[in-house]
């Protein structure tokens, strides 16, 4: 049967068809929807982990127990999971284990654009790279088979353009006859003490050589001979762009990007007049082909930064004077000068009052990864640093170690509930242990909001929507050793300002926890829409104070020959009441 699936949906389907038993992840764009789709298959035990390292460790356990296991994450997640990954490469697997890394060239929603093909090489793990949804499904199935056949974890690399694009996929029935998971003891293989690990390392090298050799005859590494004046080695989304721009050129499409099938590459090189590589981000294939002693053109003409597109490839080849591309008709439309439309916190977002207050208090805010990173945007403009998941807490401690005691009072770290449990908790242990005078605000909106409302250990529900134990954040902070823990209602500006100011002044570690849920949580009874607010036109003097919170429901309407007024859009207003507290003229009130 045919269906139109996204790359992520197709990977979930592929895992199901491969008889996968366990799927585990921490949400991260563009990988998130894979687990949101594995839950459609009751044969797969799907769960969110507090971070990618834990997710991989759960998958490793399932694999050692003999079940096939899938672990998914975005590219930066592999940095967190790298520790178990590098040793997993030594132990190998029992049930097949597939690790998806969803890379994000162009940084559509990421803080860097690392090329995780390097991880495959670094960790000595084979990597497959599909180029559309059909291949996402097929390669996932194949990855499980290769994993067991070669006793190795297998990485599957997607990019945003593959994860979030949809194309036609042919579905099949799941495999049958897989062995029943059971405990098998094999300490020499699974206990990586130096004595055992030394025995394993040569086996890892041997496995990679075998895979490189086998790659020459793998159907996923495909030689397509057409006109031989230009030969292009490519993989993933770039293959599709190359076919679009150079329909007549010969291509070597690599489905396995590590280890590279050298024999096949040499064969291809010998059949074409000039050899090119079209790959996104690093010269990963290019460097290795050059090391083989072959002449190849790649990053001399193609950009190393950002996503490739058919136009970028066509323009790069044209600029280098290489013929053969289909030239796009250029647009006649004038580029319009229009106001930008950046993302914004939602109307009724519980973070708005906190960032407004931090801005008013002129705090030095070390930020983190989540919706609240938007606190950086004007008019809130209340974020000074942002590096990676969980880093806000440690950065706050670090800043206080070097600045004057007066400036120390300004330092506030902000972090969401999910990010706090991901890796922020470790930073808090250090903050207390080393007695930093900084303040930490945990913005607990009871969900992992930025990636699309995923549950986490502090939300009280699992990925399968079953109620479960909810981490008690104040008690957790207490256990870590925090002496001053305050709860605030972020919609109450006066209380929010008073408590934040008091804790900023305190020369000891302290934690403030907000207690209002994300407005997008769909679970019944969590978020109740309040009474809608409206502006009394007579009372509004046009001071613009209410505009300083950047709420999408409040619009400035310039007056005809007189001062403008604020207007609240009733369809968007949630009645959070924050703007009403900003109006010194009592011009904002409950709608009649």
């Amino acid at each position: 049967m045919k269906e139109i699936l996204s790359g992520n949906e197709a990977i979930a389907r592929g895992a199901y068809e491969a008889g996968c038993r366990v799927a585990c992840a921490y949400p991260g764009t563009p990988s998130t929807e894979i687990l949101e789709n594995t839950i459609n298959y009751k044969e797969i035990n799907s769960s969110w982990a507090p971070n990618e390292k834990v997710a991989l460790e759960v998958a490793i356990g399932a694999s050692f127990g003999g079940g096939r296991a899938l672990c998914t994450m975005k590219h930066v997640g592999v940095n967190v999971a790298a520790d178990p990954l590098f040793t997993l490469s030594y132990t190998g697997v029992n049930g097949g284990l597939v690790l998806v890394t969803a890379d994000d060239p162009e940084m559509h929603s990421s803080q860097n654009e690392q090329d995780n093909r390097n991880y495959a090489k670094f960790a000595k793990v084979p990597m497959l790279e599909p180029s559309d949804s059909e291949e996402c499904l097929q390669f996932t199935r194949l990855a499980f088979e290769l994993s067991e056949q070669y006793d190795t974890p297998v990485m599957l690399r997607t990019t945003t353009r593959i994860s979030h694009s949809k194309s036609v996929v042919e579905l099949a029935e799941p495999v049958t006859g897989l062995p029943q998971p059971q405990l098998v003891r094999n300490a020499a293989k699974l206990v990586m003490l130096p004595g055992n690990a030394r025995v394993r390392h040569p086996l890892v090298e041997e496995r990679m050589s075998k895979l490189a050799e086998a790659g020459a005859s793998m159907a996923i590494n495909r030689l397509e001979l057409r006109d031989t004046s230009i030969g292009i080695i490519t993989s993933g989304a770039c293959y599709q762009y190359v076919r679009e721009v150079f329909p007549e050129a010969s291509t070597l499409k690599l489905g396995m990007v590590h280890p590279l099938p050298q024999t096949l590459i040499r064969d291809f090189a010998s059949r074409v007049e000039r050899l090119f590589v079209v790959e996104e981000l690093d010269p990963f294939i290019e460097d290795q082909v050059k090391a083989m002693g072959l002449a190849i053109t790649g990053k001399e003409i193609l950009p190393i930064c950002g996503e490739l597109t058919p136009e970028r490839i066509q323009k790069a080849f044209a600029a280098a004077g290489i013929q053969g591309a289909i030239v796009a008709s250029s647009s006649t439309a004038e580029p319009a000068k229009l106001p930008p439309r950046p993302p914004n916190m939602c109307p009724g977002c519980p973070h708005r009052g906190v960032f407004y207050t931090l801005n008013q208090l002129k705090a030095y805010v070390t930020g983190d990864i989540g919706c609240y990173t938007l606190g950086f945007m004007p008019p809130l403009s209340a974020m000074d640093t942002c590096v990676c998941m969980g880093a806000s807490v440690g950065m706050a401690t670090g800043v206080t170690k070097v600045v004057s005691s007066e400036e120390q009072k300004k330092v506030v770290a902000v972090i969401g509930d999910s990010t706090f449990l991901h890796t922020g908790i470790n930073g808090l242990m250090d903050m207390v242990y080393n007695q930093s005078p900084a303040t930490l605000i945990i913005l607990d909106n009871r969900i992992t909001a930025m990636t699309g409302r995923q549950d986490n250990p502090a939300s009280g529900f699992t990925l399968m929507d079953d109620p479960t134990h909810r981490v008690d954040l104040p008690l957790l902070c207490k256990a870590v050793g925090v002496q001053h823990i305050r709860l605030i209602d972020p919609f109450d500006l006066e209380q929010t300002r008073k408590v934040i100011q008091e804790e900023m002044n305190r020369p000891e570690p302290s934690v403030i926890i907000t207690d209002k849920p994300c407005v997008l949580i769909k679970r019944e009874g969590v978020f109740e829409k309040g009474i809608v607010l409206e502006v009394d036109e007579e009372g509004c003097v046009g001071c613009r104070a209410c505009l300083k919170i950047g709420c999408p429901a409040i619009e400035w309407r310039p007056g005809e020959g007189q001062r403008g007024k604020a207007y609240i859009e009733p369809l968007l207003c949630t009645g959070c009441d924050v703007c009403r507290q900003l109006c010194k003229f009592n011009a904002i009130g409950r709608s009649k």
Partner: protein
Amino acid sequence: MSGGITNILLVGVGGQGILLASEILSETFMLAGFDVKKSEIHGMSQRGGSVVSHVRYGKEVFSPIVPEGQGDILFGFELMETSRYLSLLKPGGTVVANDLRIASPSILMGKESYPEGLVEGIREQFPDFLLVDGHKLASEAGNARAANTVLLGAVSKRLDIDEKFWLEALQKMVPPKALEINRKAFLMGRSL
């Protein structure tokens, strides 16, 4: 159409239902026997940002992205976003847009005003331009929220695909309780 492939772009503001509309389009093309690819970037765009979705169909589609300047139809859900992406259209391309204005943050704050003359500007560059009062027509069909389906109907008129495939896709993708209103809205758009 370039190389037997038809390129459609759907543009607007995050939260307007662009994803669903592009899925109904894709489903229709697959049912009609074509190869289909679609692509969009979401994540940040869920927070009211600018959104563009690409849908391509034909005998065999490679890239999921419409090359710049090769769009056949620009399907706009909001006027400013419709103007923003005009350069993706090929010369002489078609614009079908909703007559709707949504302010962006700098406009909300009164730092800039919503641009004037957008409709005229679009018409000047692309004479094949249909402006639809989606809100009014959808209200007539029974629910103002079905404005997107009215527009979908208007777009369908400009593509050579049998009506039965459109209706089959609607049936598959729209929740049962909203189906009748959406059918009505679709046919109203199709008659424009």
